[in-house]
């Protein structure tokens, strides 16, 4: 990106749409398919206008069947396309899990490199939008535990566009989890031209010396709010946005924890066997002697994701992150 390139203020969901549109213009092999992605432009409007720009052959409203959407995408990829299937909500991913685990993630390897799976599976995930049951889940850890997948979770409009373009140019299958809670919660300057943000590279969002707060996606907001709040008490928190949880960038995380000696991990999925457990293990394996306190986890509870009226009690917030930092500092 050159300094001269023009920018536009846009939301995260608008950045997703722009990335799809620009890459579809550049690469005719890209196809978008899923439930309501055509005429309706997606239930969150993430594919808004694509059917008008590219027609029904490249933007396909499909039957309502998640396994079918991912399964035919495998065939389309084998035959030379670059499919971008959408799962309408991550809570509905289960029917497609067989196709993702048994085929999407394995195809490059089981065909000894002959058939890589250039595919980006997009899906909004997470809570906080007062949605009905099964519309708020965060199932990233099972995907990060599946060899062969790349799992990307942006937290800003700028990253959403740059990471999605990287994903669309990758020859590996990418799960692109979009934090729907912050689809429209803020705008930022996004270059009009296409650009890439590298996969598998974490970002240091804020530098600090006393503690490292590690998060991704929609939980970046409470993480950064906590850092602001702690700064008033002269506690200096470094905040890392993991951005790609698989393959994860261990170096940025370990370098930070070696400096601060404390780590607080924030995600909205449940604690048990969540991605925080993996991050904590990596820190223990590689930075144990730098640690001044046990690694803290601030996560959703190990319960079903509650109905809308109770979800505020379930989701991690600034207060819980601040409390975890204080526990680490007082250890």
């Amino acid at each position, binding site marked *: 990106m050159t300094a001269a390139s023009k920018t536009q203020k846009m939301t995260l969901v608008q950045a997703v749409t722009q990335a799809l549109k620009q890459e579809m213009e550049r690469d005719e092999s890209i196809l978008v398919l899923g439930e309501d992605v055509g005429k309706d432009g997606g239930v969150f409007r993430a594919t808004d206008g694509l059917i008008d720009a590219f027609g029904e*052959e490249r933007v*396909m409203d*499909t*039957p309502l*069947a998640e*396994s*079918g959407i*991912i*399964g*035919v*995408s*495998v*065939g*389309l*990829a*084998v*035959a*030379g*396309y670059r499919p971008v299937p959408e799962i309408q909500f991550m809570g509905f991913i289960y*029917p497609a899990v*067989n*196709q993702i685990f*048994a*085929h999407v993630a394995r195809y*490059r*390897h*089981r*065909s*000894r*490199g*002959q*058939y*890589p799976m250039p595919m980006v599976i997009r899906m909004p995930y997470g809570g906080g939008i007062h949605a009905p049951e099964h519309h708020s889940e965060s199932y990233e850890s099972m995907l990060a535990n599946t*060899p*062969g997948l*790349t799992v990307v979770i942006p937290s800003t409009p700028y990253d959403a566009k740059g990471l999605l373009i990287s994903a669309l140019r*990758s*020859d*590996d299958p990418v799960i692109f989890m979009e934090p729907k809670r912050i689809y429209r919660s803020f705008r930022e300057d996004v270059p009009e031209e296409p650009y890439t943000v590298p996969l*598998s590279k974490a970002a240091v969002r804020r530098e600090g010396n006393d503690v490292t707060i590690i998060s991704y996606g929609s939980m970046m907001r409470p993480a950064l709010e906590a850092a602001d709040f702690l700064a008033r008490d002269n506690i200096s928190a470094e905040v890392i946005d993991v951005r790609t949880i698989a*393959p994860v960038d*261990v170096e940025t995380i370990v370098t930070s924890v070696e400096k601060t000696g404390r780590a607080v991990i924030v995600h909205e999925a449940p604690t048990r066997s969540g991605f925080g457990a993996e991050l904590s293990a990596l820190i223990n394996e590689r930075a144990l002697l730098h640690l001044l306190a046990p690694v803290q986890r601030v996560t959703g509870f190990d319960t079903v994701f509650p109905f809308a009226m109770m979800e505020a009690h379930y989701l991690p917030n600034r207060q819980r992150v601040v409390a975890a930092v204080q526990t680490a500092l007082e250890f």
Partner: protein
Amino acid sequence: MGYKKLFRGETVRLEILNKDGKADKKSLPDISQDTMIQMYRYMRQMRAFDEKALNLQRQGRIGTYGSLRGQEAAQAGLAVNLNEKDDWLVPSFREHGVMMSLGVPMHLIYAYWKGDERGNISDKGIKCLPPSVPVGSQLLHATGIGMAMQKKGLPGVAVGFAGDGATSEGDFHEAMNFAGVFKARTLIYIQNNQWAISVPLKKQTAAESLAQRGWAYNVASMQVDGNDVLAVYEASRLALEHIRNGNGPYMIEAVTFRMGDHTTADDHSRYRTPDLIAYWEERDPIMRMKTFLINEKIMTQADDDAITNDVTKAVDSAVKELEAMPAPDPMHIFETMYAEKPWYLVEQQAMLRDELNQEKR
């Protein structure tokens, strides 16, 4: 107002050659003698391959093996209608007959059953995907490839293979439905061998046939006697012509019988009677075609002996090739997982390399 008729359909079954090798002359397809001999030769090659595989498994020279004995006609009658340049095979794990007929090297199929990953994919540029084990899941891939062929205006057809058990899986129905909606250039090819391991067809479905399911998705379909290679030939020809002419997908149900165990890890005497096996032995697809070819003077006993000789030699040389393959390199476990190896695979590969080097010392 009131009731209106919405739908009425009829599903047909095609039979040409009876169990004694007598053909229904008026149903005989327009087919050259060479093609008939070719189908017979394919079936004999499959049987020879299969018998050798069972021997190799007993001797511990390959691992668990899934026999295709009894299903030769269902695969040979289709194979002669396919064009290996344009058409795609999307197999399950009992399709080695059609695979070898289309040119997948036999030694690689043996390697697959030996547990050697090099046997998972043919490197000869044949459009044959790795055999799919999660039952029925591969049918969606065939639909997806057929959608791609349709979009690109390519002449090829994607053939998705599955058994009767797979038609109970959701993916079968989703594959049929997507194929219908998108007019995929796809042939859904069901070999109904009547047994999903130990579960017989009548416990799999209450429907009279699997073929009639095509109606539900506007996918043209028919049933065929899968032990009658002439009928399978004609059904496949019609189906492929329908698809190649741009009329949308097709589904064939070839009714056959798995003569042996599900795999060598199974014992079918636990759930099937000797009488049932004897009944199907009389309906063997190879015997009835041989009788027909000899009675019609299309083939002599001397021709048949020559075929025996050829297929035995081909199998022997495949086994030689199999056993001449150098051991697979364990380092390959880590290759082709990603376009670029992530740091942890680099570390894990180094660990295994060290272990192997220590073993060597």
